[in-house]
């Protein structure tokens, strides 16, 4: 096909205004203006707020544990340290919330916009998700202590198996939560970086496209493996 034939398609493109959509009325435009945005920074803010609430609930639950275990000096000491650590993480998250950037999508070219988004991911998002992942371990910790209180009226003597299961639970909760979010974010960053590289490169290499497809397949496989691992861990705890 030559450019003359391409012109026929260009004419069809130019002739169509709404591409299967209805024309937007003034009322419809006004309605959309009051809605919430779904940009990544907005999702980040919402996720951060949700996690802060979760940590806040965990902090209150920890205060409850301090009261319940007031007779046990060791547990009280550990609970105090965990509560202090939780409050510290909350203060870091509060500071992050104040600093969430609002990348301008207007004043910049596609190249500059992508650069801003990638920097946001690298400097804020990835660091914040590790702090958020601690919540999973916190919930596990608080859950185990309340379970012990209501089941045994305190902490029963731990043998080595119990200790291994407890520490594994804490670590797994953190690792699974952090890794899942990390990979998901990394995938989005890679896609944005891929676009930026394409803008910078003189021509798009088909090898890069193959790499991108490979990354996507690998991500799907990782999700499947994590889902199976999660189900196995859950089954193990239920079976115990």
């Amino acid at each position: 096909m030559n450019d003359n034939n391409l012109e026929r398609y260009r004419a069809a493109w130019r002739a169509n205004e709404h591409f299967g959509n209805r024309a937007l009325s003034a009322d419809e435009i006004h309605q959309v203006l009051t809605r919430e945005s779904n940009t990544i920074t907005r999702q980040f803010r919402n996720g951060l707020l949700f996690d802060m609430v979760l940590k806040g609930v965990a902090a209150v639950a920890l205060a409850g544990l301090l009261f319940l275990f007031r007779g046990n000096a060791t547990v009280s000491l550990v609970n105090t340290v965990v509560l202090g650590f939780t409050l510290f993480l909350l203060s870091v998250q509060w500071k992050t919330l104040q600093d969430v950037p609002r990348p301008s999508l207007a004043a910049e070219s596609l190249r500059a916009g992508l650069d801003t988004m990638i920097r946001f991911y690298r400097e804020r998002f990835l660091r914040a998700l590790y702090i958020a992942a601690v919540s999973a371990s916190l919930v596990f910790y608080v859950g185990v202590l309340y379970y012990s209180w209501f089941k045994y009226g305190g902490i029963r003597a731990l043998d080595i198996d119990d200790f291994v299961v407890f520490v594994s639970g804490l670590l797994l909760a953190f690792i699974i939560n952090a890794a899942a979010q990390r990979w998901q974010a990394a995938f989005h960053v890679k896609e944005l970086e891929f676009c930026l590289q394409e803008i910078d490169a003189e021509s798009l290499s088909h090898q890069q496209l193959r790499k991108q497809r490979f990354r996507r397949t690998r991500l799907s496989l990782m999700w499947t493996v994590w889902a199976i691992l999660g189900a196995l861990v859950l089954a193990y705890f239920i079976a115990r």
Partner: protein
Amino acid sequence: MQNRKHIAEFTDRVQAHQDIIHKVAFIYGRVPADREDLAQEILLQLWRSYGSFNGRSAFSTWMYRVALNTAITFRRKQRPRVDEAPEPSVDAIQPLQAELSDALKTLYRAIARLSAIEKAVIMQWLDERSYEEIADTVGISVKNVSVRLVRIRKRLAQLITEAEQT
């Protein structure tokens, strides 16, 4: 009062160039729900960025820039997007059947297989925007636009031939 005037001015301008929103959502959205979400997000981002429009470039150029930035950085639910897309699904094409010409449907299928940046460049070429405007929107040199367009047009022609044969 001032705010109402501001909104009215924005609405008039957006309505006059709303084809840009429809085109970007049409090309970057994979299914109808995606297109609707994206169109709304673009509109919202246009409104939030409107204060920064200083009139140095044409309103339509500014609008293209915001729309493409939004489309490329927009993170959709559970759906990867910005690299080379596979052949669009039946779901994506079906709602278009009744309303669009055969030429446009073929063009859509061909463009869907381009990368996100290639889409941004070719869309503006289809809209007969100048090389300077395309360069300004994407953030590359005018010479680079010219080189890329030769390559992308060639690839698009090839993809259209393939789409016509299916």
